[in-house]
């Protein structure tokens, strides 16, 4: 458990515990303003074989159906710090894919999107990969929940940032888990995952992706994950894309490990 996570749990628990004593929830209708449609860019480059995708869409108003219009016919370029550049082709509406590009750790990748008369750029450094040492099941302290511990060894002497994504039977669950090596530089970092009995049944496959990311992506996920209403002033996550685009560009090394539920 990293310090960030610990502190967040502790900040939220008193309210949760007290709220459990007496609270109730209800759906309400609010009169919310609608802003103009914003451009949303999400792109990834991995150290595994491609192709890699960049997804470009637009935001909609709160009360509208959650189908987000794709941005088509944009000019999307990914280049790296060695001078290599590639223009992506539009595979399907709003989804742009690479053809030749192979991500190499140590390089800095730049994304450039030109659409609607605007240019959006982002830069992301791909750190070296970090292997997952193990995932194992433990008896949970929290009653009937299923608890897993994850261990991986942090490389010493560099500032490392991680993002974890868990999949149950190939379906992504939570992609907003992050860790940094603050206090754990060069040591083994451990994480705890909890699932309810309904979510993870016997025979299900739990897969974990450990992405080594740079600070820009780490800050994006950290600020995006605070969307639980607990902050005094919710704001848009700190994006590493310029010109007011929402979303992020992530060049990362990824290692995967799976475990089958007994």
């Amino acid at each position, binding site marked *: 458990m990293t310090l960030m996570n610990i502190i967040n749990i502790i*900040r939220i628990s008193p309210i949760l515990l007290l709220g459990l004593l007496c609270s*109730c929830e209800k759906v309400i209708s609010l009169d919310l303003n*609608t802003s103009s449609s914003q451009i949303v860019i999400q792109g990834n480059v991995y150290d595994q074989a491609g192709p890699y995708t960049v997804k470009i869409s637009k935001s909609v108003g709160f*009360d509208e159906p959650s189908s987000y219009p794709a941005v088509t016919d944009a000019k999307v370029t990914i280049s790296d710090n060695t001078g290599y550049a590639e223009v992506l082709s539009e595979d399907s509406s709003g989804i742009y894919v690479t053809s030749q590009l192979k991500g190499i750790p140590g390089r800095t990748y730049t994304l450039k999107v030109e659409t609607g008369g605007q240019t959006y750029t982002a830069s992301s450094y791909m750190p070296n990969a970090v292997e997952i040492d193990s995932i194992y099941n433990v008896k949970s302290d929290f009653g009937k929940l299923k608890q897993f511990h994850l261990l991986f060894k942090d490389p010493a002497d560099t500032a490392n940032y991680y993002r974890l994504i868990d999949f149950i039977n190939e379906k992504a669950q939570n992609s907003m888990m992050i860790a940094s090596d603050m*206090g*754990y530089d060069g040591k083994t970092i451990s994480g705890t995952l909890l699932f309810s009995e309904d979510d993870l049944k016997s025979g299900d496959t739990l897969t974990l992706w450990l992405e080594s990311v740079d600070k820009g992506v780490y*800050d994006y996920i950290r600020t995006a994950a605070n969307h639980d209403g607990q*902050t005094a002033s919710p704001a848009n996550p700190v994006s590493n894309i310029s010109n007011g685009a929402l979303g992020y560009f992530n060049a990362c090394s990824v290692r995967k490990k799976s475990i089958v539920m007994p």
Partner: protein
Amino acid sequence: MKNYNICFLFFFFFFQIHATTQQRFTVSGHITDAKTGEDIIGATVSIKEKPGIATISNAYGFYSITLPAGKYQIVSQYVGYLTQIQPVDLVQSAKIDISLNELSRELKEVTVTSQRKNENITTTNMGLQRLKVKDINNIPVIFGEKDVLKTIQLLPGIKSAGEGGSGFNVRGGASDQNLILLDEATVYNASHLMGFFSVFNSDAIKDLSVYKGNEPAEYGGRLSSVLDIKMKDGNAKEFGVSGGIGLISSRINVEGPIVKDKGSFIISARRTYADMFLKLSNDSSMHGTKLFFYDINAKANYKINDRNRIYLSGYFGKDVLGYKDIFGIDWGNSTGTIRLNHLFSDRMFSNTSLIFSNYDYRINIDMIEGNKMNIISRIQDNGIKQDFQYFMNEKSTLKFGLNSVYHRIIPGVVTTGESISLKSLSNKNAWENAFYISKEDRMLNNLNLEYGLRLNSFSLLGLGNFYSYDANGNKTDTVSVGTRQFVKTYLNIEPRVSMNYLLDANSSMKFSYARNTQNLHLLSNSTSGSPTDLWIPSSNNVKPEIADQVSLGCYRNFKDDLYEFSAEVYYKNLQNQIDYKDGAELNFNENVESQILFGKGRAYGLELFLKKKYGRFNGWVSYTLSRSELKFDAINNGNYYPAKQDRTHDISIVGIYELNKRWTLSATWVYYTGNAVTFPCGKYEIDGQTMFYYTDRNANRMPAYHRLDLGATWTISDHSSWSFSLYNAYGHDNAYMIDFRDKESDPTRTEAVQTTLFKYIPSVSYNFKF
């Protein structure tokens, strides 16, 4: 000519030019409660033969009036007590201690007309609300606990931070802008269990004064208010035990004489057991949960001789929250003061206090084998305060003194198991000094003026590294400073002026101006505040906050002082206010000062108050219309935007009805406009998850809050009673939090969901007294 005028004013301030044709003598002494011996604070002492001459007993019950030789009748009055008239033939200075008898229920009705009750008309202190603990006895409150902090929030200008909120806001100020003093020691976190209870056990409290920003010069350090709470001294005449047993908490109070009429002590303790209910839950995972608090108030005092009296006060409280051995957090305040009253003469009163105050929290985590972690964070004050009160003559009183405090802040010390190596954050040390001088003059017969100056100096000291940052939060400079060397010093002058003009016997007008500065700032980025919020001192990056407030009020008593009415308007200008960057990292961040934005603010409003003071039915109505705004270059394009605590309307209605000798019923109704919040104005998708889009900060409002509380007290005898209360009696769904998420029934749409905390919460408690 100019120089001559300045000199004249200077001398006028310090010397009073008065005719000395007659010998003048001083009548002085202490005013106490006849039954318990407790000092009475704020009792009015006046001279029947000299209308317009009056003084009030100070925080230790001491009064002093200097008069020409002659025969007089000294009239002592205090609300709820029988007026006492003492004749005196003043041929030499006399020491006259006065003990007042509390009005019994029957006498209350009969003698009410002879009381001089126009206290609100004549006192200079505007924006001063004085609350006696007796006043709050019948007001229903959640979980049945009498709570002084909850009760002051029913007065105009003082607003709760919201349900589950641990602070309160005075005249649009942030919740860290209130100076809360318990027997002169600062209390840093005045709430238990996220604000559901305050740390003040009303069994131990005698008197509570609230100043809404225009306090006299002897107070300083926070911008928006001063809450000066005085503990009871303990019954100096006989032993007594009292207490109560309730559904959620219990309390006990023991007091008595150390030496009859010379010294006494009081010890009050309470504990909740909210977690007992969790143990009964069906969900076994709740069984390991710990959730409780306890606190202890203790005080002793002793009259060494006629001129010297010593007091020892202490408070210790703790909140505990935990789950089995896996994690635990506890937090709490402890305060201690040693005070010595000394009478240099019958006109010169002095008090010397040694003050200690500590607030800390501890986090213990042991989730995974070998991964143990303990974090301690604290703020500790050690200080000395010297106050003089010089009763110059019947028209003037001079107060002056100094206050010196050493602040020590430990933002976080970490001790860990082997598999973690976390560096503790660097400690902060500061030395704060203040010198004040203040004079109260009664000019003509109907103008009371109180004016003074407070000089404040705040120095940030080493040992440590001090950084400078650019606009993007990157370090631009590091300065290494040795132990107790000065890093940065701020000097501020705070003028205070208060004027009270009596229009007639029943009405007055008041004007006041005050400047306040604040050098300790609470960093809090959550909706309701958390016990782990960090206090930071002013530094090379953080300037002192400054507030200038003017207020104007008119006061009127009706129907032979049965009704009290006041209307006050205020305007407050704030500088060096703090807000946070988007995505600010405040937790455990050595460079937390790089996450802060600075700007200015303003607050203004109208406060109306109507109170029926006596009778079987009594109570009050208070209404506040106000606005509180901030202006930061980096937020909302540099335009003024509402502060989180901005509340347009705030209404409180309190009614107490004495049905008969046994039953008293009460009801409280509150209504207020919701806080300013930021709601989404769009949505988009990232990694298959719905994300919400925000533009302007605080452009939306939470829904209006209102609730009714009912209470009843059944007095069985002088020794026992039952209290019943029902919180949120008509169960209005007040929004504690509003979340946005995908619709559960239809994930292609999104919805807003509101969480309500408390509805229909009953409480029963049994109270005893021996």
